[in-house]
């Protein structure tokens, strides 16, 4: 079996309008910038995919990556924990103009909801957000004298993620803190596409150090020497 996809264009060709799309990374760390830009290229060429719901910790920075998707008008809704950051004008402007929806989720709850989707756990209880407005309307329950909020899993149609090493079966490792949401999103989407910096021979990743087993990955595309989103933002790159 070989999950390798020959090019970025083919890797994102199937993502439809209105898809729920998870995008890995935390800020620029671990962000699959080449896959995102391939998706923007497709939108510019064809008008699709549009009306996307994007799930990411943030809401884009500068004029590359998710920020460029938002500027291009592909995103209908963001589900994230921290859209307000420096250089987040792309989201801010659309949001304040009422042109983009926002579902704000505490960061740990966001991670756990994504993991729950991958784990077949439809709901769980967390102390996080109890008694706050982010828990409004959610069921609550007392366990052992403490109060908790019930949260639902967060599933997606597609995930695009960034990894370091990958093999043809989709086994992945990550780079430094670029791991973050990437392994979770791989589990939680119906179809997960990973860009890897190095596509290596089957058997050359030690089974002990695989972070994402290939069962969670559907497609893999090699992007040697990937660009780093934060470095692009700092360089003022506009995509």
């Amino acid at each position, binding site marked *: 079996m070989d999950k390798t996809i020959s090019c970025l264009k083919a890797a994102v060709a199937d993502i439809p309008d209105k898809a729920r799309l998870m995008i890995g990374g935390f800020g620029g760390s671990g962000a699959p910038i080449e896959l995102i830009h391939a998706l923007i290229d497709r939108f510019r060429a064809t008008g699709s995919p549009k009306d996307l719901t994007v799930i990411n910790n943030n809401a884009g920075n500068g004029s590359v990556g998710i920020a460029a998707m938002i500027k291009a008008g592909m995103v209908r809704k963001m589900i994230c924990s921290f859209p307000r950051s420096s250089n987040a004008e792309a989201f801010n402007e659309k949001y304040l103009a009422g042109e983009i929806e926002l579902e704000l989720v505490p960061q740990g709850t966001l991670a756990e909801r994504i993991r729950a989707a991958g784990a077949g756990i439809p709901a769980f209880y967390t102390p996080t957000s109890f008694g706050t407005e982010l828990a409004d309307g959610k069921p609550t329950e007392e366990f052992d004298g403490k109060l908790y909020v019930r949260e639902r899993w967060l599933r997606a149609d597609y995930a695009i993620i960034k990894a370091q090493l990958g093999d043809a079966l989709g086994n992945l490792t990550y780079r430094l803190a670029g791991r973050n949401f990437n392994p979770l999103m791989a*589990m939680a989407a119906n179809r997960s596409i990973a860009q890897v910096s190095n596509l290596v021979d089957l*058997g050359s990743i030690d089974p002990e150090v695989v972070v994402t087993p290939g069962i969670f990955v559907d497609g893999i595309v090699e992007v040697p020497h990937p660009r780093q989103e934060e470095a692009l933002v700092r360089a003022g790159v506009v995509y």
Partner: protein
Amino acid sequence: MIERKLSNAQIAWRAAQDIEHGAYVNLGIGFPEMIAKFQPEGRDVIYHTENGVLGFGGAPKEGEEDWDLINAGKKAITLEPGASFFHHADSFCMVRGGHLDLAVLGAYQVAQNGDLANWSVGTRGVPAVGGAMDLVHGAKRVAVVTDHVTKDGKPKLVEACTFPLTGVGCVTRIYSSLAVIDIIDDRFVLREKLPGMSIDDLQAVTGAPLHIEGDPLDLLVPALD
């Protein structure tokens, strides 16, 4: 009256033919494990075991076992290229989270609505469940391999299970010693039966109605003994 039936090896062979190239598969302890031996040439199948291994292969040579490298049945295994290790919670994410293409289990009873009983016959003794109750949920297909009847000739395919359940409405296909049967909308739908056995004879040893949708195919397997 049963004149001829498939051996366990032949049932396993038949089940193996339906496993697609590239499938992620969990084979239950015991009889279902035999399916791996009959994996058709040219198809890559990636086997999962509950205790945290994906991509394992057959048993090592005797004397070369490493008892830290075992499957859920506590048998020594080997690794295929592209294998990975993970902890038990991640392992059951794969199971419960819908990531396996197929789980195959044994059965005491299967009901026409897909209920499975395979962990306890409800008598005294030490109960044990292992991963069976998890495996019946999440896999895209949950199949059973089983003799068609019990040792004393009673149907194992029944209207409703009388033994304690492993899972509710979970089985989608049965590979028995006499037939291949799908479970669709709470009914047994006959897909294949041994050539020479009449539908009436098959029905006589089946505890719930067999539904026919198009002619059943002949259940043909090689001699394997």
